[in-house]
């Protein structure tokens, strides 16, 4: 396959970026999208140009590091995959492909296609945990049976890999799906009940502070989420938030 690539290049946080055009030839349709970019970079290094910086790590769709906006879609045209799982067979020979970083004020570009997602970490730090010390002296694991339905609902929420595709794809740059996934995981489990109210209030507050937009129920996040996390969890979070707001003593 021969392709024309329009790639976002930006030197650092401060300087303005823009699209550059590169050509790659002879790409196998079995190559992954990131392997195609490896080949492009190898070519740039040979030519003495600085290679394009992009984020990746596990390359098997679980670490959540890779984050490319391809032809106007988070993680590209395939569904239920991360960028690293996207393969070139999804594209046509001779195609022009636009490659951009996640776009959100709360996730600023660091360089080229790499963005700063530390806002996600700060949201988790504001309440995404159960306050239990790691003493090993907790009760026996089976002393707390959990109905399978709740366990499954919690699990499906916990499948979030924190990639940020939901934010990138949302016209409001909302992080509701991400925050809802964590809030819901604990809301469905008995271990999460003790701190449930404060958790949802804190996490939502931090989310707003980071500059993420609100949710207008377009459902775009659910479509692009590589782990198919449902927007029903946003409803769950809203319910948790409302009930916490009404009954909170603070």
């Amino acid at each position, binding site marked *: 396959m021969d392709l024309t690539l329009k790639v976002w290049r930006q030197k650092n946080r401060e300087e303005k970026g823009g699209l550059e055009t590169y050509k790659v030839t002879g790409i196998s349709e079995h190559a992954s999208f990131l*392997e195609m970019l490896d080949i492009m970079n190898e070519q740039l290094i040979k030519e003495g140009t600085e290679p394009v910086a992009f984020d990746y790590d596990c390359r098997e769709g679980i670490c959540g590091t890779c984050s490319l906006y391809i032809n106007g879609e988070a993680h590209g045209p395939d569904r239920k995959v991360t960028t690293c799982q996207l393969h070139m067979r999804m594209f046509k020979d001779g195609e022009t492909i636009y490659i951009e970083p996640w776009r959100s004020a709360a996730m600023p570009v660091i360089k080229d296609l790499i963005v700063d997602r530390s806002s996600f970490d700060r949201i988790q730090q504001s309440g995404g*945990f159960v306050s239990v010390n790691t003493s090993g002296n907790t009760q026996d694991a089976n002393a707390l049976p959990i109905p399978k339905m709740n366990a499954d609902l919690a699990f499906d929420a916990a499948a979030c890999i924190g990639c940020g595709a939901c934010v990138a794809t949302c016209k409001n740059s909302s992080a509701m799906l991400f925050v809802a996934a964590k809030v819901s995981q604990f809301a469905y489990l008995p271990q999460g009940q003790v701190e449930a109210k404060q958790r949802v209030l804190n996490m939502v507050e931090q989310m707003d502070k980071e500059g993420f937009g609100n949710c207008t129920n377009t459902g775009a996040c659910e479509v692009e989420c590589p782990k198919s996390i449902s927007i029903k969890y946003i409803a769950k979070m809203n319910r948790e938030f409302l009930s916490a707001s009404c009954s909170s003593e603070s």
Partner: protein
Amino acid sequence: MSVLDSKIPDGPLKDKWTNHKNKIDLVNPANKRNIDIIVVGTGLAGGSAAASLAEMGYNVKSFCYQDSPRRAHSIAAQGGINAAKNYQNDGDSVYRLFYDTVKGGDYRSREANVHRLAEVSGNIIDQCVAQGVPFGRDYGGLLDNRSFGGVLVSRTFYAKGQTGQQLLLGAYSALNRQIAKGKVTMYNRHEMVELVKVNGKARGIIARNLETGELERHSAHAVVIASGGYGNVFFLSTNAMGSNATAAWKIHKKGAHFANPCYTQIHPTCIPRSGEHQSKLTLMSESLRNDGRIWVPKNIDDVLAIREGTLSPTDLSEDQRDYYLERRYPAFGNLVPRDIASRAAKEICDAGYGVNSTGEAVYLDFSSAIQRYGKQEAAIARLQNPSESDILKLGEGVIESKYGNLFQMYEKIVAEDPYKKPMMIYPAVHYTMGGVWVDYNLMTSVEGCYCIGEANFSDHGANRLGASALMQGLADGYFVLPYTIGNYLSNEIRTGKISTEAAEFVAAEKEVSDRIEKLMNIKGTKSVDHFHKLLGKAMWEYVGMTRNEKGLKKAMAEIKKIRTDFWSDVKIPGDRNSLNRELEKAGRVADFLELGELFAKDALHRNESCGGHFREESVELDGLQKGEAKRNDTDYAYVAAWEYKGEPADAVMHKEELEFNDIELKQRSYK
């Protein structure tokens, strides 16, 4: 050669850990506030250690090269985590888990460490459930278990195919709680590039801020390395692209012995390479072998026709297929341990029977299982004379419920439907059992420098059992290191703050800076990946699944040559004072180029076959076991810990003799 002191406590095996814990010096809470600890790496071991140490009251600085601690490669573990809970009432116990782990490690691990691991395994599950880790449950709401890796009990806890992710997010949440409290300072996108020693003790690190390129000095009373394994020395592995041995190798060069580097696990069920562009390999859980049958065509003509695309594997009848594992190992069949399954696949492909275009793939076929489950389901549903399509549909449903996510993953990568056409698999480097030598307290041979998780060597011997890597990482981080480190730190309460202005810090920073300058100034003609791929090829060819003296000597010479070429011809574009991926990679590959040579040297000296290390010179010569691995307990029942002496070829070996008082040593047999 000296003898290493592993500091194993006295007394009966089952009481060692309890007695030792009771005697460990404690640090008073007021003093803990004045003690700093650096933890490098945020996987299961590093993340859990940082969180636990901070909870205890120490000041922790935690470092990871990723953009968030949640992304460490522990996250990719699929299968599960072992624990001797005996919830299934199938006779499991701490002793059995201990025994299976030592036996699975082919009697090359340290008995006392493994027993401790088995002892704390149950606590891990309790702890994780308390944190809200969503393990798989049954309809009664209790935890479910699966059997794993050829053991006779069901002791593996799991969270679908994402056990590693859920456990890591548990550790990450514990870490977040401490970050929020200000007890842990988190340094994302930072890489440790040097260990700083003052008066022989580990006192800090030099870290490079990967976004700005700035070198930073960080001091502490103890340094904990939890940087994972070194599988990427092979270039292609199931590790993350960024997984590296730099932190472990830097402490090795500062005096920490490196133990058993040749023990590597090659996992049999990975998705084969599709061509030269391949950047990494993807593993699929070995639970697939519970229902899949492995085969290649009997006739070489059929192999060639399949490669050309003129024949489909489904066209071949049963008698035209060679189910080579079932043929060679009738007792265990497709469920032989990982090392044996991997070697058998390589042998059959080397003989020309590989079924894809690269000649490196065998079939893993689910059609028998689909039939079997389909008929079973039809009977349960009381269907009279079910049609073939009914059976297929029902059978595929069962397979989907068991392995759905793996089948989907395979289909996305290979673009073939594994329900209809057999999967193709090939072995890939997966886990490294060797690593930094540590004593019973997990301290390396550098005072005050600890090493935990996959980065150390102690628990898995020559081969690791399935679902025990997660167990070891969390055991070290949650329940072992936080206690054992007290012995050392109780003597540090009078030390006071350690200044980063000390001459040793200045010198270490200059050393790093000069090294970076040297790399940038080579201005050669080849990319970093070029050299990494050459290294990987040499490793796979001569230090891969089977090894012999001639090949290993050749590997040592070749790796040395690649290293020399690297230092004269590597090309690193960009500058050092900004985010520069090529520079990051160059530093890591420079270390792999040294580690690889030591790896081959270790494999060369160990003239026996044990676990993941197979020497062609050491095989059974006759009888039922003819051609199978032959361990040599008389001459090699020891840990080889290598001391750095400049060139990797000059490393000096120190032995730790392994004593087995509670277990009888046996040769493995799967025939």
